[in-house]
């Protein structure tokens, strides 16, 4: 009797949530579902194998989520395979470098941005270009912050457990990237520091960034951020 009552309670709550017009986010597919979908895509087998390996590590360590990954893969079936491969290779390379490529249903990262640009009806060439710049921002931010001693560079790889520094790198790279790509700021613009600090402050206030971010914010200088931008737009050896 108790089981029946509890079951009815769960059922009633589920129906209530749906009937109240609450827009509830998406389901979380199992990694096997995502990898199964990838296996069925029209891509070279060797590339699919490498990508499956990268995604498996990313799902296990929190560098990507199955929800956004599956949606993006589904999007990519609508574009020519060679273009899809180029875009996915950027993401695979980012994972291999230990970067977070997908923050799930909050925040910004490469896969979320790709989905956003698709929603904005941008061409895949534009999206691929933005993804390659975002990757450069990640690489430049990590190397610059490490050079100035603001983060410690340990072992790098897709299977290495995430640390707070990984999220710091992502958010600094994203803020600098947003300033340059979407705010029209140039590398010498002195407003870049205020822009990045305000972004990091807000992320700290909602708990996305840990306390270490405050130390980083205090140590940031316009020169460091300008150096990141300079590195992004100069030819970089990354493959």
């Amino acid at each position, binding site marked *: 009797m108790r089981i029946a009552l509890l*079951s009815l309670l769960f059922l009633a709550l589920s129906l209530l949530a749906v009937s109240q017009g*609450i827009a*509830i986010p*998406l389901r979380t597919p199992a990694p096997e579902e995502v990898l199964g979908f990838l296996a069925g895509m029209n891509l070279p087998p060797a590339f699919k194998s490498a990508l499956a390996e990268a995604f498996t590590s990313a799902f296990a360590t929190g560098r990507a989520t199955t*929800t956004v990954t599956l949606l993006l893969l589904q999007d990519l079936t609508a574009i020519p395979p060679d273009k899809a491969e180029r875009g996915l290779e950027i993401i695979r390379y980012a994972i291999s470098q230990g970067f977070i490529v997908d*923050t799930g249903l909050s925040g910004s990262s490469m896969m979320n941005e790709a989905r*956003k640009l698709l929603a904005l009806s941008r061409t895949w060439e534009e999206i691929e270009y933005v993804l390659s710049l975002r990757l450069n921002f990640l690489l430049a931010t990590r190397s610059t912050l490490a050079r100035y001693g603001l983060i410690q560079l340990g072992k790098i790889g897709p299977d290495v457990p995430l640390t707070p520094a990984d999220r710091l790198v992502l958010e600094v790279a994203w803020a600098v990237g947003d300033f340059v790509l979407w705010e029209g700021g140039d590398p010498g613009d002195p407003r870049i520091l205020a822009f990045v600090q305000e972004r990091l402050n807000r992320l700290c206030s909602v708990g996305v960034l840990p306390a270490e971010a405050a130390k980083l914010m205090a140590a940031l200088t316009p020169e460091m951020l300008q150096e990141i931008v300079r590195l992004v737009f100069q030819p970089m050896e990354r493959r």
Partner: protein
Amino acid sequence: MRWDEVDELIRAAVAKEVEEGQKRLSGLEERVIRELARRPVRRSFWEKVREFLSRPTPRWALVGALAALLLGFALGRLTAPSPIPQWNPNLFVIAAPGAKSVAIVGDFSAWQPLPLSDPDGDGIWSAIIPLPPGRYEYAFLVDGKWVGQDPLAHEYLRTFGEYVSVRYVGGEHADRSS
């Protein structure tokens, strides 16, 4: 033949008949019961249904409860992410009088449209979206047209010439957006 001799013969014949009859009667009850058990009672479908319904057992009650539990779980599973983080209800609202459909896209939906509703038809479309703390970019789609500037947003970005609203959920921003 004398009458007494006839009587003797009759008694002997009757005794023989009784003796033979008793042999046949021996085990008759068991045979009848066996025979009855061997012949199934044919019941109609409705009789069987009535019998099933009139005989509730704890086993079937448990099966029913389990089915209800699974249905409730499946409904929740289909519509909610797992694991469920600490959610804050967030009201997203836009004035769009005369619009036929209004949706919202954002990080929280992986940029898939979520419909807004206007139950009283006053042109104010809204949705309550439970979200964990974080930074969310989003925009409205009014009859399919991108509307990226929400007055309730904390900041805006311009992406390829289109505005995108940004809302921070949690912490000191909680009171403004929920």
